[in-house]
Every structure is written in structure tokens, then in C-alpha cells.
């Protein structure tokens, strides 16, 4: 597919993917330095799905996210400083340090929050769709989930209801072919996740999740349909994660994935691919690249510094926010 999208947008998407990649690398580094607790689930390798899917969205459109959601947060316009502060458990983080990596929410930016329960966010996305319908606005909901979630009861209940009520929810499967150690062929009863759309009478398609422009194009179509009141769709974006399931996965998930497979996918890295096309078709120069890298680096460093300098929340805050005033 030729680069029909305009140069500015392409460069913006490239920069965003780069930002996500560098952010995740920095997060892994901080985790290894014991500054981030629990676990993080890096989305390295899946940047095109995040950026391609979020680019057609407006700020007021909703998004429901997964435990592997740093990329989606950034693509939806999150402030890196507040994200980093949340990862470090500081009171200046998006959730005042109470949520951590898996629960980052940015309501002003339409981000209804990440979820630590696989498939936990789908019914919430449906609820947002109902609210849009009742309020009569033309917002849409981008509902992210992984291949693993498509077997969870909530997936089926949610698609059914969204289809039934023609809700403006775009179900985006970030299909990285593995649910922790379980490959899709040992978990999913159909050959393509997009086939499941048929069970609920909604359009579904499988696409190359590592081609940011394809994801962008298909997402734009689905968003326009949804805004026009024509109901939900299922986009199965096939991609791959270059890191393990989480930071505790030995050998970056090498115990259940082969090196050949990993190498094949590394070759199809979304950032690498867009870069090549930008150089070839949109005049991306080495100079521009260097500037961009430096800018991304500076933004991330600023975020880390902000997070480091921010205070931890005082223990008294532990009992607050159970209910709103």
C-alpha cells in the first residue's frame, strides 16, 4: 500500500511509535533497578497497533485498555511524566500511585483505564458505548484486549450486547499470538479471531498489526462507521511481542517461543518497517531521525526526572478514594 497518508501524520506516527518503544525500554530499565514494583508487561513490538488504532481517535473518544497498555496510553495522548510517576508509585502519577502499571487511567483524555483482569475491560467498553448512545454524541469507544481475552466469557457477552444494541465500540484485538505461554492455536477454536465477529453479526477482519498505516486505515473506516451509528466491529491486529509476557518471564518468553519465530517477527518490526518506507517515500533523513531520537530521549528523561523528584504518597492516603465525596 502506497503511503497515501500525508507526510506530517506519518512522521507523527513514527515519532509516537518511537516514543512508546523508548518508554518501554526505560520502564524495563527502571524495573531492573527495583524502582518499579510488581511487574510490567512491555508492549515492545506492538507499537503499530497502538498508534495506528489511536490516531483516528479524537481526544473525547473513549479507550479501554489492557495490562499491556503503556503504548495505548501514550498513543491516546497521555503525559509521559504522569505515566512515569504512576509507575514509580508517586503521588503525582495518573492514579496517585494507587493503580500502578496495570491500572493507569486518564479520564480527561478519554482513557477509562487499564485492567489487570484479562477480558475485564470489555464489558466496561460496552457500558461506555451505551452512555454515548444515550447522550446522543458521536463519540466512539476503542476497546483493546489480547488474543487470550477472546476466550473469556466477557468477550462473548460483550460482543453480543454491543452488536445487539449497535453500540459504537471498536473491538481491537492486539493479537500477539500468545496468552502468556499458550499459543493461539491451542486456545482458540477458530483459525482467525476475526471469524468470531460472524457469531455476533458484526464485521470483522484480520490485519497486519505491524503495518501502522494499514491499522490506521482500517481503524478509520471502523470509527467512521461507528460514529455514523452503524455499530461495532472486530479488528484482529496480528502482531508480536518482543519481550516476555511480563518482566518475570524467563528469557523473554523463549521457553515457549522459538528463536526462528522471534527472528521472523523482529524482521517485521513495525518501527523498522515504517522507517524504511519513510526514508524511501517521504524523505526521512538521517538528520531528522537524529533530531527525533534526541527529542524522544529528552521527553522520556524529563518524565523520569519528574517521577524521581515527585514524592511518595503519605501513608494516610491509603484510606482515601474508596468512595468519591
Amino acid at each position: 500500500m502506497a503511503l497515501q497518508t500525508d507526510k506530517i501524520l506519518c512522521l507523527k506516527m513514527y515519532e509516537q511509535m518511537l516514543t512508546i518503544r523508548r518508554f518501554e525500554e526505560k520502564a524495563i530499565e527502571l524495573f531492573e533497578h527495583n524502582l518499579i514494583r510488581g511487574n510490567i508487561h512491555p508492549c515492545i513490538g506492538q507499537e503499530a497497533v497502538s498508534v495506528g488504532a489511536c490516531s483516528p481517535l479524537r481526544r473525547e473518544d473513549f479507550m479501554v485498555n489492557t495490562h499491556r497498555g503503556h503504548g495505548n496510553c501514550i498513543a491516546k495522548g497521555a503525559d509521559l511524566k504522569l505515566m512515569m510517576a504512576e509507575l514509580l508509585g508517586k503521588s503525582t502519577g495518573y492514579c496517585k500511585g494507587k493503580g500502578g502499571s496495570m491500572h493507569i487511567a486518564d479520564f480527561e483524555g478519554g482513557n477509562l483505564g487499564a485492567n489487570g483482569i484479562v477480558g475485564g475491560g470489555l464489558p466496561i467498553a460496552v457500558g461506555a458505548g451505551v452512555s454515548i448512545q444515550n447522550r446522543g454524541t458521536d463519540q466512539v469507544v476503542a476497546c483493546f484486549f489480547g488474543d487470550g481475552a477472546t476466550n473469556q466469557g466477557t468477550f462473548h457477552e460483550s460482543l453480543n450486547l454491543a452488536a445487539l444494541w449497535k453500540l459504537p465500540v471498536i473491538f481491537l484485538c492486539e493479537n500477539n499470538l500468545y496468552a502468556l505461554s499458550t499459543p493461539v492455536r491451542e486456545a482458540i477454536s477458530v483459525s482467525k479471531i476475526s471469524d468470531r465477529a460472524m457469531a455476533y453479526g458484526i464485521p470483522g477482519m484480520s490485519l497486519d498489526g505491524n503495518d501502522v498505516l494499514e491499522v490506521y486505515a482500517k481503524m478509520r473506516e471502523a470509527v467512521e462507521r461507528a460514529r455514523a451509528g452503524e455499530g461495532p466491529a472486530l479488528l484482529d491486529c496480528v502482531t508480536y511481542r518482543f519481550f516476555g509476557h511480563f518482566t518475570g518471564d524467563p528469557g523473554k518468553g523463549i521457553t515457549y517461543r522459538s528463536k526462528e519465530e522471534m527472528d521472523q517477527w523482529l524482521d517485521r518490526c513495525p518501527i523498522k518497517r515504517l522507517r524504511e518506507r519513510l526514508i524511501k517515500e517521504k524523505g526521512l533523513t538521517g538528520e531528522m531521525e537524529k533530531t527525533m531520537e534526541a527529542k524522544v530521549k529528552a521527553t522520556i528523561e524529563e518524565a523520569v526526572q519528574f517521577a524521581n523528584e515527585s514524592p511518595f504518597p503519605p501513608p494516610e492516603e491509603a484510606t482515601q478514594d474508596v468512595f468519591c465525596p
Partner: protein
Amino acid sequence: MIQGMVQGNREKGNRLPEITFVESLRMTLKEEMERDPSLMLIGEDIGRYGGIFGVTRGLLEEFGFHRVRSTPISESAIIGSALGAAMTGVRTVAEIMYVDFTTCAMDQIVNQVAKMSYMSGGKAKVPLVIRTQEGGGRGNAAQHSQSLEALFLHIPGLKIVMPSTPYDARGLLKTAIRDDNPVMFIEHKLLYATKGLIPDGEYLIPLGQADLKRKGKDATIVTISYMVTKALKAAARLAEEGIEAEVIDLRTLVPLDMDTLLQSVHKTNRVVIVHEGCRRGGIGAEITSRIQEEAFDYLDAPIERVGALDVPIPYSEPLENAVIPDEEDIVRAVKKVLYMA
């Protein structure tokens, strides 16, 4: 000569003098699967991956796919199919990765597993163990750090076992597997790497038998699971001040060993109940009630409950520490019932 002996020990099932909690569970599952050729394991990532804590490592290779079934992420389906298999002759141990996820299968656990025998007038037998793990302290945040045993305590038809040592884990798991009733076998994520001694050979620990982990005379600390560790540390600190606390590890919640508790209360007249679940409606509430009903005349002070604050578990370290009970809370509670605080 010694080389050969060590080798022989390994072949017998790794019966080294001190083993980890994980290894204790693993070897027990293996032995029980050898003993009962129908016994099946079902859960997420339990096959090749060996379970996220390594409890089922090597079992798929040894017993094959039909008996070690790795599933999609479908908690309802996991519990539901475990129930069906157990009812029709296949004794099952199902694994739910985090106790927080049992909520995804609550209908199956509460309405199906717990009630099947009762509703059928005793005709259905449900030889099912649901293994899971709970607890916080590692920054796993609100949806991966809970202690939910109080929910299951409230549902008639479920036995609840929560071992605190490799020794207890082994003896209790054997009993749980051989029991023809549904058992919630709740482990703790911070106990998996702990080590302990186990004797050679087989032993079973009956359900409903508490264990006196520390003898004392000044106050009784009633506790279970990982909090046993903290209670023993608190008792050591109190001993430095001349206060001898008795620590009772309940080991099972259903059935509950009231006899051991009452004997202790008669002796010390003072009770502190420590659990990691939220204080409100936690297991401490039930135990407090039972003690005051059955040993009212022996109490010198109101029973103290030490539990987590009634909030979701926060992510940030100082917040998490403020929420989950620690040694200091236990020491303070003991002093309170001694009118020393």
C-alpha cells in the same frame, strides 16, 4: 557411595531435608497422580510452562496432556469443567492463578461447586480441589494482591485450607485431594520460596486441626497463612519484653478447630486474631464471635482483630505497607489486650 545415595534420593522424588513450599506442592501432586491414575490437573499455563510459580513443572511431560490440561484464559470454564469431570469420576485439581480471578468464576464456585452435593440430596460427589494463591506485599496492586478467604468462608459447601509451611502444605494437600468434597486450597505468593523440613515418607494432616506454632501464657495469637510468619516474629519481639504470646496456626478455616482455640483462651484469657484480609467482615469477625460465644467467661479483654485496612491494596510501596498488617500492628494488639498500650 554418597553420590549414589543423593542420586537415589532425587529419584525418590527429591526428598532432600529442607525443601521449598513450591517443591513440597509439586512432589505431592506428582505422588497423588501416581497413586490415583484418574487424577487430573486443569488450569492456565500449567503444562509446558509449569505454572507461573513452577508448582506443576515436569508434570505434563510425565503424565501427558489429558491429565495436565492447560486452558485458555477462561476461569468460568476452568471451574465448570473441573466440576463436571469430578462429578463423573475424574478427581480434579483445578488451578486459578490468582485468588483475585476466582471472582471471574464466582457463579461456578458458589452456585455450582459448593451446592451440587446438597442439591442432589447427597447423590453427587465432588472430589475437587481448587488451588489458588493470594496476598500482597510485592506491589502487585489492587487486582492481584487480595486475600479473599472470607468470601469462601461464607459459602456453605466449601472447605478451606491455607497452609503456612512446606510441611503443612504437603500433609494438607494430600488430605484435600483424597477428600471427596470441594476444597479451596489457598496458598500465599510470599510463601512459595520459603523453605522447611519435611520427613521422609508419607503423612497426612487432617483438615480441621490447628497447629500450636508457639507456646505461651500471656496472650493467644490466632492466625493463618503468611501472617503466621509475621505473628511468630512479633512474638519473638514481645518475648524480649517478657511477654510470652501463644501462636496458633489455624491451617484450615472450614472445618475450624475450636477446641485448640478454646483451650488456649482458657489459659491466657486474651486473644488477638491476625489475618491479611480486610478487617471488616474478615475471618477474624467470625472467629471472634465463636470465641466470645464459647469462652465468654474466660476473657479479660475484648478480642483484638488485626487485618488489612478496609481499602483496595494500593500500588505504591509506602501505601501498601500502611495497608497490610505488619509485626508492629501485631505487637501493638497484643499489648492492647494486656492493657499495656
